Structure formats: structure tokens, C-alpha cells
């Protein structure tokens, strides 16, 4: 079916459906994922197809959900857990950071923990400070975990199927505002390899590395900039850890300038890691300006819509910052 468009959330649902249909070991576990269909509808209808034994509604027990994934994965299953909001993963941290991530290494390379934990992050829904977190870099900081952040429906399906097939624990970070965005998504099952950075748009004047929803905002910004004669190169790492950094290094060698855009707060964010990688790389000798980060303000997400809007990078702020960099303001 050519030109078939799906929303991001539909693409995720289709990936889950196809993985479950093809592999009996795959099952879903989380809060309100059964008849309710998940807080954002990602699992809608799956309980009808696969039954309550494979689409398991849990009590409000995030440590339990994570532990259920760890324990079943290490004994041969392929669990896909859902944490209703990324914020709530704080309750699961012990199981993810101290158990799932470390088991293989700690046991001398023997155990495998093939689990996926999906969770929607990000602001923009007016849900305030405890339902809008972007905590991906917490997990980037933990060897043994893989961290994936799809920026569009096509990637979401292919990356989720790859994550389910991966023998490692994968933190799969979705974005609430992306759920309704559409892209062409093939009907057949396909995977996008983890740790494969994507050049979203080619350009010569600036390398812009963005994650999740910021990739889409960067693409919008690039259109406006292009009309003004500025051509930026947009790069989406897609998998934050382990990172495929070579395409970024090569791009910076080409453009001499690098801007990182992410929603998470700037201090301690993934941008710091990216910037360090470039500073340490062969691209350093090609830099023509200081590397810059455009990221969330160092504050919790405010409730007020105007304040919320100004807390994280938007298309306008990306345009402004990119322009300044290209024009040599720094």
C-alpha cells in the first residue's frame, strides 16, 4: 500500500501488534494498557487480539512493572513494559539501573535481559512538572541500557521492532506531542538498526543535532532558514546510547559549526555528551565557532501555557539561534 500514512502512536501500536503476532514470547505489561488501551492509546485493541495473559494490566506498581520485565526477560520472555508517563519511571529506577542494566556484566557476561520499557516523555500538554519530564539522559548515563528516542512515526515502528528483537534492556522514549504526527509507514514489518544515526536533512552552514520532537521543530526551522539562504544539516541520533557518533563528526567537519537542540534541561542533558564527543573528536580542528546547546531551561516544566512554551526550544528559537551561529555572532 503506497503512501500509507500512520500517526506515531498507530505506528507504535502496529509494531507491538506485529511483534506479538510473530513471537509468542513477546508480551505487554503496564498500567491501564488493557481495555483502557493505555493512557495515550498505544495499546488500544491489543488485549482483544492477544488476551489478558499477553496484555497484562498491572496495579500502580512501577517498580513491580520494571521487575516483572527484568525477571521474565532473564528467564526467556520478551517483555515490553509501559510506564504511563516517563516521570513515573523514577519509581522503577532501582530495577532498571541496578538490576536490568548490570545483570549481564555483574554475572560475568552470562545473563541476557531482552526487555523494552516504553514511556512517553516531554512537555507541551499543560500537564505541569510531574507529567512532563524528559529524563532520557539519566539512562544514557547507565552502561548496559540502550536508550532510543524516535522522532517520527516511521522511525517509531522500525526502532520499536528492533528494540524488541534486541537482547539488551532498551529504554524507549516516546513523545506525547509526537503521538498524533503522521508519516508514511510501510505496512510490513521492518526494523531500523539501533545505534544508527540519521542525516535528516543535508546542509552546509551548520550541523544541528536534535532528538525526539526537536527533530521536527528543526526541520520546520530549516525551511524558514533556507528561504534566507541558510542551509542547515539536521542529524537525529535516534539511539542516544550506544551512540553512532561518526556521522555527526563528519558533518561537523563539513560545516565547522554545531548546535544541539533537545527538550530536556540543559544542565546535565544529552547535549553535554554530544558536545563533549565532538570536542574530543577529529572534528575539533574544523570548528569555526563555539559549539552551542539550545535546550530546556533549568527549571521544572511550569503549568502556565505561555511559561511552558518558553521553557523548551521552539521553531522560532531554533531559527534565531541557528541564524546567529551561521552569521558568526558567537
Amino acid at each position, binding site marked *: 500500500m503506497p503512501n500509507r500514512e500512520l500517526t506515531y502512536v498507530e505506528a507504535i501500536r502496529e509494531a507491538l501488534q506485529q511483534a506479538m503476532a510473530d513471537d509468542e514470547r513477546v*508480551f505487554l*505489561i503496564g498500567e491501564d494498557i488493557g481495555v483502557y488501551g493505555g493512557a495515550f492509546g498505544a495499546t488500544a485493541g491489543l488485549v482483544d487480539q492477544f488476551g489478558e*495473559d*499477553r496484555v*497484562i494490566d*498491572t*496495579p500502580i*506498581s512501577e*517498580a*513491580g512493572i*520494571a*521487575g*516483572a*520485565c*527484568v*525477571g*521474565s*526477560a*532473564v*528467564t*526467556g*520472555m520478551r*517483555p515490553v513494559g509501559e510506564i504511563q508517563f516517563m516521570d513515573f519511571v523514577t519509581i522503577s529506577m*532501582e*530495577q532498571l539501573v*541496578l*538490576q536490568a542494566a548490570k*545483570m*549481564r*556484566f*555483574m*554475572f*560475568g*557476561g*552470562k*545473563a*541476557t535481559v*531482552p526487555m523494552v520499557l516504553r514511556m512517553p516523555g516531554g512537555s507541551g500538554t499543560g500537564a505541569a512538572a510531574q507529567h512532563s519530564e524528559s529524563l532520557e539522559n539519566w539512562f544514557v548515563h547507565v*552502561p*548496559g541500557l*540502550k536508550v532510543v528516542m524516535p522522532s517520527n512515526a516511521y522511525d517509531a515502528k522500525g526502532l520499536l521492532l528492533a528494540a524488541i528483537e534486541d*537482547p*539488551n534492556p532498551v529504554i524507549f522514549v516516546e513523545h506525547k506531542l509526537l503521538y498524533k504526527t503522521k508519516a508514511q509507514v510501510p505496512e510490513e514489518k521492518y526494523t531500523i538498526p539501533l545505534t544508527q544515526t540519521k542525516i535528516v536533512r543535508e546542509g552546509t552552514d551548520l550541523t544541528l543535532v536534535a532528538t525526539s520532537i526537536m527533530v521536527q521543530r528543526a526541520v520546520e526551522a530549516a525551511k524558514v532558514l533556507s528561504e534566507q539562504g541558510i542551509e542547515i544539516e539536521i542529524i537525529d541520533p535516534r539511539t542516544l546510547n*550506544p551512540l553512532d557518533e561518526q556521522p555527526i563528526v563528519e558533518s561537523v567537519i563539513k560545516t565547522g559549526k554545531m548546535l544541539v537542540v533537545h527538550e530536556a534541561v540543559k544542565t546535565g542533558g544529552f547535549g553535554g555528551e554530544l558536545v563533549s564527543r565532538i570536542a574530543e573528536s577529529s572534528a575539533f580542528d574544523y570548528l569555526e565557532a563555539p559549539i552551542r546547546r539550545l535546550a530546556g531551561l533549568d527549571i521544572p516544566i511550569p503549568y502556565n501555557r505561555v511559561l511552558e512554551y518558553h521553557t523548551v526550544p521552539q521553531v522560532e528559537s531554533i531559527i534565531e539561534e541557528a541564524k546567529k551561529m551561521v552569521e558568526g555572532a558567537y
Partner: protein
Amino acid sequence: MSNTLSEVMELTREQLKEMLLQMMTIRAFENKAQDLYSLGKVHGTMHLSIGQEGTAVGASTALTNNDYLLNTHRGHGHCLAWGSDPNRMMAEFMGKETGYCRGRGGSMHIADVDSNNLGANGIVAGGLPISVGVGLSIKMRQTDQVVMAVFGDGAANEGAFHESLNMASIWNLPIVYLCENNQYAMSMSVKRAFNIECISLRAQAYNIAGQTVDGNDVLSVYEAVRKAKARAQAGEGPTLIECLTYRWKGHSKSDRQLYRTRDEVKDWQKRDPIVRFANYLQLSEEAIAEVQKEADRLIETAVSFAESSPEPSVDTIMEGVYA
């Protein structure tokens, strides 16, 4: 608590003697561990289970290597009782390449995934949520296995305990929750940390089977776990077994033990699970000495094996992070 042992008919004389050997081997291992640590031959920290040999051996005897074990930081005993090789345990303890975890885990993380020993855990209650997953997995794969999650009295006051036992109960999972109540969570006594008579009472809150047994009576532990396994296999769900026992040594090597009296320790030492079991078996002194000799020999062999084993190569440092 009486000092007699419960009668168990299912076990043969040979099996009973094997259990005594295991208990003595555990104590010999722990004594040796203490010596090696004092001598600086091992590093880090370690948690000795001297005085708790009855729970470890009783529980594992009721299970097979086809079942699963989730262990605690005070886990040498359960590991040996599960049937792990003292040589590879000692090598792990010394951080050697031949250890169960290639020297990456150490005392607190000894695991033998091949025999379904899913590892000791450095996090109090860390194994409890995992047990839910293992239980789910058993149920979904429709095998007749069970998983035993061992934890201490301290773990019963973690939030993960509640989440796990509740999930295990609502899904009727084949899990044996074995709470080793050794009276202290580091320095916090059970009397100060709980406002209930016994920890197994909490089973009622989850509507699962609960029982408190004399953890220094290896046979009553065996019997409780055997019944819990049968219950799990019959689809009757999890059981919470509380084993009353006592840790003779400090929490770890840097423990001054200001929270308890020497008299209290001596009192519990009179209920030594090994002495009680040896008396029960009515073995002659020579026979007991024979078993002790075998236990010591096993541990001496383990030390030689470990000491002569190679250190892990730094070249391999990155191995095993990702599959």
C-alpha cells in the same frame, strides 16, 4: 523455640548427611572468607551467614536446579546450598577470571545463570520485583518450575516488597518468598522496625499462605519450602515463609555491633543449627569429625583453586556490558 528438630520422612539418611555436609561447608566457607578478608586477600565488603546455615540448606533441599533462586547480599550459604561449585565461588570472591562472574561480581553478586541461580543482590529487596517477572515467565511458559526469592527482615519494609507480593498474589504466581529474619537489618532490630508479631502475618494482607518457622531447624525450613513449592505447582500461588534465625557475625566487617549484647549472641549460638542437626542425626563424634574434615577439604581446595587462578585481563574490561 525448642531445640528439637521436626521429623521429616521423605529424606533418606544419605540425603540428611549430605545436608549436614552442606551446612558445614557453608560455615567453613564463611570462616575462610573472614580469614581471607582479614588477611587482605579479598577486598570490598562481605556479609557472612554464619548461624543461618539451616535456612539455606533446608530451603534449597526442597527445590531443584530446574527451579529459580533469587538471592541476597548475605548469599554465600544459599549459593552453596543451591549446589554451586565452591571453587568458582571462592575464585569469584577473590575476583578471579575463573569465578562465576569472571571477577566482575564479587561476594555480593555471585550468580550461576546456567543452574537458574539468578544471583545474589546488593540491593535490599532488589530481587523481589524480579521474582514477579520470573513467576510470570514460568506461568506463561507453562512449566512446573517455581522461583524462590530470598530476602531479609529489612527487605520486608521496602516498597518493592509490597508491590511484588501484591502482584504475585493477584496473578497467582509460583513464588516462594523466603524471609530470613536474622533479627537485624544492619543495626535496626526487628523489634524496632516492625509493629507486628511476626513478618509472615503480612501474608494475610495479600491473601496468600504465610508461615513462620524455626530457621535454625533445617528440617522445618525444608518442610515449609517443600509445601510452598507444592502449593505453587498446584496453582495456589505464592507463599511467604519467615525463617527465624540469627546472624552471629556483624552486618559486615566494619560493624562494631553496638546494637546488641554479647550475651544475646551467645544465647543464639547455643541454638547453632549445625550442632542441632548433628545431634538429631545421632552421629558419632568421629562421624561428625569426618564430615567436618570433608567440608574443610572442600574449602581448602577452593582456596587453592582460587589462588592459582588468573586475574581477569584488563583487555577484557569492556566485555559483557551489552549482549
